[in-house]
């Protein structure tokens, strides 16, 4: 009564990584429609978005679009700019990023959140750019 060994070459891939070691970052795209933004991130394989933009930059549409695209949406609190972000929050985002392919959406020039998260886990940060096309009116 032995457990069945997995057939070689089909399971037990030594290249398999249980946890992510990189995250994406995206500078704020104020005014951009969120639907194509979320769609593009989902197409890149992003599974979770931490939205760390301040104040009015975040919109309810972003959350709805994420839900529609099967992407987790985690709004960072309004006071999540680096200096006041608690270590608990940074640890939470780091843990989430280890398990879900994560994109941090941050305000232009605000690197505090990413650096605090990287203090928890030394992720490689891959910056993404998003081209905002003309908006039809």
């Amino acid at each position, binding site marked *: *009564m032995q457990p069945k060994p*997995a057939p070689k070459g089909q399971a037990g*891939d030594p290249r398999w990584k*249980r946890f992510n070691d990189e995250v994406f970052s995206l500078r704020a795209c104020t005014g951009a429609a969120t639907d194509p933004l979320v769609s593009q991130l989902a197409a890149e394989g992003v599974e979770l978005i931490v939205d760390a933009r301040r104040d009015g930059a975040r919109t309810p549409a972003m959350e709805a679009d994420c839900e529609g695209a099967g992407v*987790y949406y985690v709004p960072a609190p309004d006071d999540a700019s680096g200096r006041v972000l608690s270590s608990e929050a940074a640890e939470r985002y780091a843990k989430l990023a280890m*398990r879900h392919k994560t994109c941090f959406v941050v305000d232009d020039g605000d690197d505090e959140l990413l650096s605090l998260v990287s203090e928890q886990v030394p992720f490689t940060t891959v910056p993404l750019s998003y081209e905002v096309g003309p908006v039809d009116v």
Partner: protein
Amino acid sequence: MIASVRPAERRNVAKCGVIVVCAPGDAGAHATFSPMAVAGQDYRWNGEIGPLGEALGSVRPGATYSVTHGGISRAFTVAGRGDYEAALRDCGALSSDSSLGDHPELVAVVQAHWHASGSNGCRFAMYLSEHRERFGWETWVMRDRGTVQAAASAIAALTNSRIDEVEVDVLSFVLPHVTSSSVLGEIVQCLGTRDGWRVAEGGDATDKDIDLLGLTVGIELGFWSEVLGFGQGEPLAHTRRAPFTELAIRTKPPRGARSSKRAFMADVPLDADSATMGRWKKETKQSRSQRLGDVHDARGKAKWTTVVQRSTGG
């Protein structure tokens, strides 16, 4: 800093096969390292079947059950606690004057071997249990606390402290002193009343004397994780009749968002390619239907933790 979860470091720790023993009521914050379980304490095991695998491979399953499905009857033989006890005695791992239940380090390995043997009907669980370090299955063998309430409190406290740990994908509690489904049902009901837990009840159309209990626990990102129960006793589904009573929790939400907010064991990330996963899915479906048949199909579903028989309370 979450130093211990860096992939390279974590692998090194796992290779050591460390065993951690915690004082009663301690949630792990002051864990000390020890190669052996300490009497009267909860015992944490996150190792693998390893050295005992060969000895347990010689276990002679003594229990049988028959299931009719699709007009075909099949008989299955499964190993119970006594069968494992005999195998461990034969190889000298268990002395003639001691009981398996008194050795939490053996209890944990035996239960892991039972999962890996396929008796639970799930091909994914077999692989998962065979490679626990790699996939993060942490088991606690709980000491006897005397009452259902105390057992539930201890499980809740440990769950609270371990469920968010990034290296833990599955958290299970083995209760060697619980030998009936009625007591497991009471523990489930008791847990269901606590903050962060809930229990649903349902009926089984194949047996009006059966109540189904579905325990869930709140986890990260607003998900509710379905808790699987295993143990002893006639009313339990064939695929849940294990050498020891156990509650197993999938501790993390799935990689991708899901509107149902349900989390379950099938989401544990494995290192198999899509073709293998597809084959295992077919094997699981077939094994499950053959082992459960029509009568045990409902009670064997993942959303139901355990079963209580109304007339006997068990």
